[in-house]
């Protein structure tokens, strides 16, 4: 019982809808994901940690079948996850909670209708659906009375609870959480995170949590995958990756996060991520890396196993030999 992401590659063609597409000589692509592999045990949480443009949201969408990968596949308990519009899609087994509940919920729908949507086509009777809806609302801590209200009448934290209720109503195996707390207030964030952990303990959901916040990652994760420009640069158990980071990017990312004590790293990471259209030859992080070597400019590092983690960096090549 597990979710496997096997060597997924995703490219988006540039200018595909452009008026001038027939005149352009060569096609240009953005490589959003380049050979991403992960495996998650049932009931565990893997956190995808990365900045904007790292491909973390694309990965989440591919996992639930909202996008088709160009290469590679997603396996859920051995069965291949198919694009949602195709035959054989695993309906209801994989669900997604989006970043902004204000945008992902229909403002004119009542809470009950909204939560019921994923199971309307499942062949259940009307009473059964109502029962399931009320049960999931109860699980996320919303009162039965809120079922008749419009989703637009709710506060941000309540909306995100509705989004979670909608995700769990079909009793899925895997829930992809795309920055579930980044659009809500700090004082509410802790409530929602607690709720997610409680639901996981109760129901044994497998979570793929997408976030840029190392604090959220620490609280939620069993395993952490750090992404940079479409590749996983470091992947391993929580304690290994966040407490003893090996890849220079992971180290820099963790140091950049502001701390409540006000203490900051002596020197923030320099530069900005290069464009995905012209990915630098060699290691993708090399232009910003303080440990850059001649070798890093020439070819891309392959993942190296250190303890229980996988790190893509030439710095650790010798230690393996």
């Amino acid at each position, binding site marked *: 019982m597990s979710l496997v992401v096997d060597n997924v590659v995703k490219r988006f063609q540039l200018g595909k809808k452009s008026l001038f597409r027939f005149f352009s000589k060569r096609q240009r692509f953005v490589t959003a994901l380049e050979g991403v592999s992960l495996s998650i045990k049932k009931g565990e949480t893997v956190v995808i940690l990365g900045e904007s443009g790292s491909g973390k949201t694309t990965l989440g969408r591919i996992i639930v079948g909202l996008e088709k990968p160009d290469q590679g596949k997603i396996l859920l308990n051995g069965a291949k996850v198919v694009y949602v519009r195709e035959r054989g899609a695993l309906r209801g087994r994989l669900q997604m909670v989006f970043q902004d509940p204000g945008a992902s919920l229909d403002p004119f729908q009542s809470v009950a209708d909204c939560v019921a949507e994923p199971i309307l086509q499942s062949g259940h009777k009307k009473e059964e659906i109502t029962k399931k809806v009320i049960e999931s609302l109860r699980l996320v801590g919303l009162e039965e009375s809120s079922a008749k209200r419009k989703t637009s009448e709710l506060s941000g934290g309540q909306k995100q609870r509705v989004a979670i209720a909608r995700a769990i109503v079909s009793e899925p195996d895997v829930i992809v959480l795309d920055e579930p707390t980044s659009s809500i207030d700090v004082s509410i964030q802790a409530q929602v995170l607690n709720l997610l952990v409680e639901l996981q303990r109760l129901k044994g959901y497998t979570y793929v949590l997408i976030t840029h916040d190392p604090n959220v990652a620490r609280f939620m994760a069993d395993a952490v995958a750090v992404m940079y420009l479409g590749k996983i640069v470091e992947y391993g158990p929580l304690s290994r990756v966040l407490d003893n980071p090996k890849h220079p990017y992971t180290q820099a*990312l963790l140091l950049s996060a502001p701390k409540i004590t006000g203490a900051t790293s002596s020197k923030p990471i320099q530069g900005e991520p290069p464009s995905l259209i012209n990915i630098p030859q060699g290691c993708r992080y090399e232009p910003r890396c303080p440990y850059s070597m001649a070798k890093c400019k020439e070819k891309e590092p392959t993942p190296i196993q250190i303890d229980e983690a996988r790190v893509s960096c030439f710095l650790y090549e010798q230690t393996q030999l």
Partner: protein
Amino acid sequence: MDYQTASGTLHAVRRVNLSVNEGEVLGVVGESGSGKTTVALAVAGLLPRNASVNDSSQILLEETNILTSKASDIDRIRGTGVFMIFQDPFMSLNPLMKIKHQMIEAIRVRCKRSLEPFNREEAEREALESLKKVRIGDADDIMERYPHQLSGGQNQRVMLAMALVEKPKLVIADEPTTALDVTTQAQILDLFKEIIRSTKMSMMFITHDLAVAATISDRLAVLYGGMLQESGPANEVLSNPMHPYTLGLIKSIPSKTKAEGMLEAIKGFFKWDGLEHMCAFAPRCPLAHDACFKGVPVATVVNGRAVRCVNYGEQYEN
């Protein structure tokens, strides 16, 4: 300060007293609905038309009261006196103008307001210098570009460069790093600190993120429900929070793993209803008791820090 809305009057900000000294960064922390942006807009003289300010209020920039000044006077203050940096730099920059021309325009405005002679070549040189000061890579190239060709971090640097050429006394930064990545955010915060240190500008830094505020502020003001709940030196407020809300905020930042136990969340959520005659935080406060609901507590000064909580003296505003 009230907002006239379709459903009546909303008291967005009440009894807020703040001061920023020269060369100081005041961090204003609060969640949505706390009134932090309203305070900022009022200081910049940018309140929307449906906003009205109580007659007894005043906002003083050195000696000028922004609230009672004429529009033309406020125009002079804005830019040279107060400069505002918004959350989304794309929205504050003109998408149809090259960075160069926007920078030069800012210099022209300054010259006009401070009655200096304006010289185009000199202005261009100054704009370039200012861009270099904010450590933007390849400043010559950036001058010739449009905002949409730059990243969020670069645009925010351009905004700061513009603030530098305007030479304001006070910079108001409203969530300037919220739209940026963590690594870019660290760079921008570092830059802000350096600029403040070298130019002696004052800054009001508005954020919902306590950790960001901790990194940059000298003093902190915590807003909740339109009122100032606690204020004081940043390190003291964070290491020894006195108001239950500040304490709750600090505790709700995830700092442990799920195996180590649940987070201590603040219960409930913020509602405006019925907050007129009691402590605004009382409905959500873990320490709430009868006294909290009797009236709005006064801001008690304890060890040089202001706290609006009955646990530090049971006195109410009338």
